[in-house]
């Protein structure tokens, strides 16, 4: 990228380990990409100092034996919080290894996640809920199984500017829910909107001064 202009020519292309069309999400940790493929693969790709992809993907070590559909991820620094959705688990990946695995308790399939300060929020598709976890060091501790409930099955979650935004769908419509987050990680609904079914992705864009 040059300022806000993206070079149309990629400076590197890497084929994923499975490359079976099940890729779920990509994120960036220090000097690496981390990628989930729903066919039970979590992998990393090295980045050159200038940020270009390099070499071949490497399978993350210590993936739990019960791995079942890694889906969403959120990154900060050298940490990647990766959901193992169908095993009802959230994992911490650092330096190419799974270090921690935490169960999602009463809420099922924590598909998508986002970080907001010391908290990790998971959007649990079949449970139509958002769970809150405290994350520090190698710990992922669930401190609210249901921080908020949703109308439909969530398909993505994002945070920023003191907000958490979630997209969900119920087959006939999609919904956007926007929550304020207080210092204790409590979610307060600020607004919601309904749109045609099939909406994909959500992001919070920073405010302008």
């Amino acid at each position: 990228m040059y300022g806000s202009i993206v070079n149309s020519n990629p400076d590197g292309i890497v084929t994923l380990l499975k490359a079976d069309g099940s890729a779920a999400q990509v994120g960036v940790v220090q000097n690496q990409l981390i990628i989930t493929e729903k066919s039970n693969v979590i992998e990393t790709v090295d980045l050159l100092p200038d940020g270009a992809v390099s070499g071949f993907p490497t399978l993350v070590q210590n993936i739990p034996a019960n791995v079942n559909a890694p889906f969403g991820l959120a990154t900060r620094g050298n940490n990647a919080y990766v959901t193992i959705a169908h095993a009802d688990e959230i994992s911490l990946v650092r330096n190419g290894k799974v270090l921690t695995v935490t169960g999602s308790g009463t809420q099922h399939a924590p598909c998508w996640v986002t970080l907001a300060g010391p908290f990790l929020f998971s959007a649990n598709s079949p449970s139509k809920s958002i769970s809150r976890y405290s994350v520090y060091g190698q710990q992922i501790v669930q401190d609210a199984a249901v921080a908020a409930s949703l109308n439909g099955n969530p398909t993505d979650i994002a945070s920023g500017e003191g907000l958490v935004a979630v997209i969900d769908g119920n087959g006939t419509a999609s919904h956007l829910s926007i929550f304020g987050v207080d210092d204790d990680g409590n979610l307060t609904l600020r607004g919601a909107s309904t749109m045609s079914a099939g909406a994909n992705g959500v992001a919070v864009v920073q405010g302008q001064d």
Partner: protein
Amino acid sequence: MRRQNAPHWSALRQLKERTILLNRFRFFGILVPLISALAAAHAQNALVVTATNAAQNQLLIYDSTGQLIHTVSAQGQGGVGGNAGGIEAKGSLVAVVNFGSQNVSIFERANGSLRMTQSVPAASNPVSVAFGGSHL
């Protein structure tokens, strides 16, 4: 004389220290609410975006209370499903995957909304996108 004046000077010094302390409290008393107000205003000013993911993909732009304020064409085709990170924001930039047309649309914040600035081709059908350093 000096001994008699000592309590007087001490009282003056204490009064001066109290005044400085009081002014500090006043300063922070103004500064802290001001910073909080600015942070709140910044959050108010934030935008939330999603994509229709339809055959003619569009970016839906909402204010922080969920009010739809603009709809902008992504000049590409949607059609992705079962993935996250199909939209990524970094600073004033937003990237949106167009699964069906194998490209990524770039938007930039302008005048309280977002305008599309670029379409970047992808090697195959994109499902998720991320910014890292000076790369997309």
